[in-house]
């Protein structure tokens, strides 16, 4: 039972157990369970690979991971362990590194089933810890937060991205395209975006790296060209898109444990993702609405000015007519006494 031994040794919590119990577990039963799981997993993978198109591959791969949490984790573990042993970086795995390295190097083909069954027996948190330690060891990337794995999730995201860059896993078929080429800064930006800290950070990080092809397809071509004359709004759509893209990547690489343990957190991320997706459209609508409002104001102002001009014009005309009338009345008044005198004069002679 070299594999089970190895697994036990890897896990810091089970380190104190005695080795006799492990030796008692039957090798045959473990092997059968392993084969079953592996067969079903490979079948799932093939079906998934055929049906999925390249864009949604990553997301569906995440769902596959969900359906087979234990297997995927085991697989990751094996790959990572191999890489770790090759690089002789197993020393960072604190409890019993020499035994693990030796056992893994000797038996790389058979070990999967035992790991799987053991993993199922264990609690989720301990498994997570194991995996995290291995990841960190293989990456040469020791996080400051590695001592508190349950309290924050960002280091795990980072480590997963790094791990996917290793070319030795069969999951590379699913991770083709922009996901592999994503550098570390974008993953950092992803972390900040997932926390919802600020969009400026994502904008800064996304500027040196051109957005991947999926982002361009989301961009809808020349839709944002007219935004160039808008003052502060130019930065936000790109950053929104980028963060959206990153957010869409996150769930695909979540460990199943994370999904199980922090299910509420995952739901929140889903909500954010949908928000970011509609944010683009909402922004367009906002711009259009502003233009429309400006047009409406101009229309109203024009009509008001027209009416004011008309009022002024009519007032002027009214004043002119009034004056004319006054003059006429005065003329009449001037004529009136003449008439009277004339009449008098005419009536005067007796």
């Amino acid at each position: 039972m070299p594999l089970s031994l190895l697994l036990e040794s890897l896990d810091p919590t089970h380190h104190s157990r005695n080795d006799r119990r492990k030796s008692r577990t039957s090798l045959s039963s473990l092997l059968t369970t392993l084969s079953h799981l592996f067969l079903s997993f490979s079948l799932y993978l093939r079906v998934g690979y055929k049906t999925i198109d390249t864009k949604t591959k990553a997301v569906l791969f995440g769902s596959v991971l969900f359906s087979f949490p234990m297997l995927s984790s085991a697989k990751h573990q094996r790959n990572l362990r191999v890489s770790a042993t090759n690089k002789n970086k197993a020393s960072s795995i604190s409890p019993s590194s020499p035994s693990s390295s030796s056992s893994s190097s000797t038996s790389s083909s058979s070990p999967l089933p035992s790991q799987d069954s053991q993993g199922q027996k264990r609690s989720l948190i301990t498994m997570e810890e194991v995996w995290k330690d291995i990841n960190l060891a293989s990456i040469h990337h020791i996080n400051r937060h590695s001592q508190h794995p349950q309290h924050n999730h960002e280091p795990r995201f980072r480590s997963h991205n790094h791990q996917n860059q290793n070319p030795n896993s069969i999951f590379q078929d699913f991770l083709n395209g922009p996901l592999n080429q994503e550098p570390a800064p974008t993953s950092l930006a992803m972390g900040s975006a997932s926390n919802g800290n600020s969009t400026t950070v994502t904008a800064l990080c996304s500027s040196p790296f051109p957005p991947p092809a999926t982002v361009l397809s989301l961009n809808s071509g020349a839709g944002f060209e007219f935004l160039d004359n808008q003052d502060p709004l130019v930065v936000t759509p790109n950053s929104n898109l980028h963060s959206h893209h990153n957010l869409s990547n996150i769930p695909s690489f979540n460990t199943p444990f994370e999904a199980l343990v922090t299910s509420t957190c995952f739901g929140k991320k889903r909500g954010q993702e949908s928000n970011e997706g509609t944010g683009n459209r909402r922004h367009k609508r906002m711009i259009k609405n502003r233009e429309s409002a400006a047009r409406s104001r101009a229309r109203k102002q024009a009509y008001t000015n027209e009416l004011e001009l008309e009022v002024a014009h009519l007032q002027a005309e009214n004043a002119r007519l009034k004056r004319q009338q006054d003059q006429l009345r005065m003329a009449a008044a001037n004529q009136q006494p003449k008439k009277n005198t004339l009449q008098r004069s005419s009536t005067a002679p007796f």
Partner: protein
Amino acid sequence: MYVRRTSFKDSDYIRKDCERVKKYICLLSRGDPLVVGRVVGDVLDPFTRLVSLRVTYGQREVTNGLDLRPSQVLNKPMVEVGGDDLRNFYTLVMVDPDVPSPSNPHLREYLHWLVTDIPATTGTAFGNEMVCYESPRPPSGIHRMVLILFRQLGRQTVYAPGWRQQFKTREFAEMYNLGLPVAATYFNCQRENGCGGRRT
């Protein structure tokens, strides 16, 4: 005594007139409705009114920015052109610069009406209707309908374009040497029911 009173009244009138003229100039400088409504700019270049233009739809006289519905503009309006010399001829153009919609007018200027050879002091009834009147029926948004009056160089010097779509008033004026317009007015037209509909 009478003379005194009238002189006082006259000075009063003169003072009031001056105030009105000042106010008028102030209003004009603050914003000509054609400028504020972006008719000058979108369709025309800045110009000075030289001839009066009076457009009447039924009983309603069109003032700049008036809101009219398609049912009110179904029939062609009565247009009266000012001026003094009957030997002057004018061209009236009616265009819609907001096609297909005000937010995205990529088919800018649809020709609704073109009447040439209108003698001064008369109306469109005495002119030559080159492109017959097509009543505005904006599908979406609030469209401006602009009526522009040009002074022709001579009689029968202006001809109709081949089609109504993609009409360019500036190019049209340049082609027939019409120069700057001598008068213009515009009104708004939107869908019968609702307020403009979707502005897509």
